């Protein structure tokens, strides 16, 4: 082969490479709340998404990226517009702030890291996520559920006591969390607490309050060629003595560059308890029970989360299991 021919071959090979993958072009995106995202932002967002997100969340935003296979919890599919921590009533479209918070902080204990990227890139990729689901063009995001002032400030022990009741008892302004999450009182104490709160005896002999049952989730494990879910997963309500909470870090860590105090941790718990978890069985509690009970629950759950992985937690678990034994 002569020199020019060889060079021609090399050049045409590189040209073939150039034409193999063209950059997508974007139209401005009209959102249902009246905002218009310019094409340039979407284009930038696409580049950012490709670099940081696509390997897990998939090129098509369906949560089926090559690195995401087998991850539990599964990487979010953006095609349903369904987010776990949206800062709004569970199931509604999330606020931009909530999405940015997740990007900035990551989700504790999952491969969703705290992405330390330029502010403009965060903004661009949040807007780009909205191209995956048609919901953004049809619905406005939900009303952000703000954080109300903490009514228990300075009365922590009292709040934990109140939270314990709100957690284990159903009805009468209590949430009854223990019906999905596990209970943290030995059988006799649990029965006594219920009797005291409800004013009647409760038969606990037929129930197992210490084993969490997996619940249906709306998040897909597999999707078809169109990105529609073909297999939905199940999720286990977290056991606070054992599981890491996704939106809560250990006290003393640095989150978003500032120390993570007990107060911030409570605030984050409050946020999840009030809003619920999109796509999971955890409902929105805001408005369903009195505000002071929501905060009391945050205090109580925090007291449990502090025990995670300690000997005290292991002893408590042993006591709980032991109290179940005679029933069998």
């Amino acid at each position, binding site marked *: 082969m002569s*020199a020019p021919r*060889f*060079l021609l071959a*090399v050049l045409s090979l*590189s040209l073939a490479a150039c034409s*193999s993958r063209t950059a997508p072009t974007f139209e401005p995106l009209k959102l249902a709340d009246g905002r218009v995202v310019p094409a340039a932002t979407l284009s930038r967002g696409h580049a950012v998404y490709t670099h940081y997100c696509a*390997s897990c969340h998939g090129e098509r935003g369906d949560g089926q990226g090559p690195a995401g296979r087998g991850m539990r919890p599964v990487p979010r599919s953006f095609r349903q517009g369904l987010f776990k921590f949206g800062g709004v009533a569970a199931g509604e479209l999330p606020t931009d702030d909530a999405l940015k918070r997740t990007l900035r902080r990551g989700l504790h204990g999952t491969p969703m890291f705290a992405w330390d990227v330029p502010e403009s*890139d965060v903004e661009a990729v949040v807007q780009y996520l909205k191209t995956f689901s048609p919901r953004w063009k049809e619905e406005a995001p939900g009303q952000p559920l703000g954080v109300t002032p903490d009514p228990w400030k300075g009365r922590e022990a009292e709040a934990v006591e109140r939270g314990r009741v709100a957690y284990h008892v159903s009805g009468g302004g209590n949430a009854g969390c223990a019906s999905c999450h596990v209970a943290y009182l030995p059988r006799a104490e649990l029965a006594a607490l219920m009797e005291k709160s409800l004013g009647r005896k409760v038969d606990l002999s037929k129930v197992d309050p210490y084993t969490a049952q997996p619940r249906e989730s709306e998040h897909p494990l597999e999707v078809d060629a169109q990105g529609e879910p073909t297999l939905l997963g199940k999720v286990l309500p977290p056991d606070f003595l054992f599981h890491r909470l996704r939106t809560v870090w250990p006290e003393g860590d640095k989150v978003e560059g500032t120390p993570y105090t007990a107060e911030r941790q409570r605030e984050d718990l409050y946020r999840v308890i009030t809003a619920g978890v999109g796509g999971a069985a955890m409902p929105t509690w805001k408005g369903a029970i009195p505000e002071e009970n929501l905060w009391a629950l945050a205090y109580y759950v925090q007291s449990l989360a502090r025990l995670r992985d300690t000997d005290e937690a292991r002893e408590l678990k042993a006591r709980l299991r032991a109290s179940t034994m005679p029933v069998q």
Partner: protein
Amino acid sequence: MSLFSSDHKAVARRYLWSGLGFLLLGGVLALLIRWQWALPGQPVPGLAWALPESHGALTPPSYTAVFTMHGLIMIFFAVTPLLFGALGHFVLPLAIGARGLAFPRLSALGYQVYAVGGVLVLASFGVRLGPASAGWTAYPPLSTPAFTPGLGQTLVTVAVLCAAASAFLYGLNFVVTVVRCRAPGMTWGRLPLTVWGLFFASVLNVLFVPVLAAATALLLMDRLLGTQFFIAGAAAVGGGGDPVVYQHLFWLFGHPEVYILILPAWGMVGDFVAFFSRRPAHGYRLTAGAMGAVTALSGLVYAHHLFTSGMSPLLGRAFMVLTLIISLPAQVMFLNWLMTLWRGSVRLTSPMLAALGTMVVFGLGGITGLALGAVATDVPLHGTLWVVGHFHLTMGAASFLAVFAGLYFWFPKMYGRAMHEGLAKAHVLSSAVLFLGVFGGQLAAGYAGQLRRLYDPYQYTYLKHLLALNQWTTVFAFLLGAVQVLFVVNLVWTLRRGRAAEQNPWEVGTLEWTSALSPPPEGNFATVPVVLRGPHALSQPEVLERLGRDWIGQAEPLPEPASSEADDALGSVSTVGGAT
């Protein structure tokens, strides 16, 4: 000489300028990596035009692109072309008394292919989603479109293919030239050690570069045509592809590449140590034989790169033994160099300082490599900066110093002008010392557990205390960058104002200095020299006695004992005088 001349010296100059350009680019990229490790996420002054979103700070994608391109440019576009393209092309035919390379047009074509590759590398910086960012080794699945979807990765892969094609072409050319085009009397036993080094390295080029080309071509097909040679999991679903296959192919080239880079350096060190100790190279045959042994073993040790890749532990043991065995010939060479220096009349010229520097950094690199050749110590060290420090000492610092040893040595021959010795010595010495600072720092950080390639190591609590060490290493790296100005100043000044070089400034006997003009014309020699002796005929008593100097040209007849003055005169006319 025109831009399209296929004379080996013209091709060498083209490689020299391109190689130096890429060395500068690769060096700047290295400093960006060091900046990120000293001041993670801080904007780099003057980089805001390239990274407007982050006001000039490296973001994780730009950081991965930077370290990928640094490695790739240095290996394929800077050091290899400088050693072979520039020095090899220039010296090899002259040193064996040939009028040129065996296939002059092939060597011109080789440069053009390399240049196309270089253009593609530069173009990759301008495309959407940035240049390649899968690491210089381009391991799948990182280098598949799923993880590195940008066009840049494809362009760079084609560029590596070009560099490989060019390396194959000059490798072939060198082998044929040494085998077929030696001057009369230039027996194998009379070749300068530099030629031996270049010859063995070229054999490796011919054998193993095609493996790289094959791996790269298959990778391109995976990227562009949807084949699944290296797609993860393809084997599990019956497709037959596996990313580890790529690792085998890559390192079957990649490990010999280490020797491709270091063999010419070893050759030069062997020659320079003899030249500047004014003694014949001790154990010449053993040194050449040791180089041959390394060449023979080099392909058999590659799998130590895969100790942590899920290779069979039984294979690991075999490759560990072979890997450790390859250090023996290297030790033979080292001992020979030391024996040559022993009681020599050492002259610390700039090429000699660079050669000694090469010995020191390569020696340290070799010792730190033993820990990586043994499975038990490789497993904890493999993913850390220890590996980075080790191979930068052997492939980076040693090859770099060898390139400059060669450049300072042959520059008067290439351009007919002498470089400033003082500046050259300062450049070589400070570079060697700073190399030890930079790569010593990397070894220490690696031993402390710092993983390679981390964007921000201090996100890990156990690495937080390494910030100060990394900042010191960065200071050394920036100083190392700064002292390269000495070379640039020297080069520019010499080319513009430098004094004309003497015919044989180093007073050595090899053919390029004793039988050719400075710079040599096309065709190299007025008459093809007839070689009479080896390359290191230094401080021979009879030469001292009959010629009054301690060196004699390889093709210079030694006059008979002075029976009459007329004989003396005859002897000197037909030798050095012939070329002046």
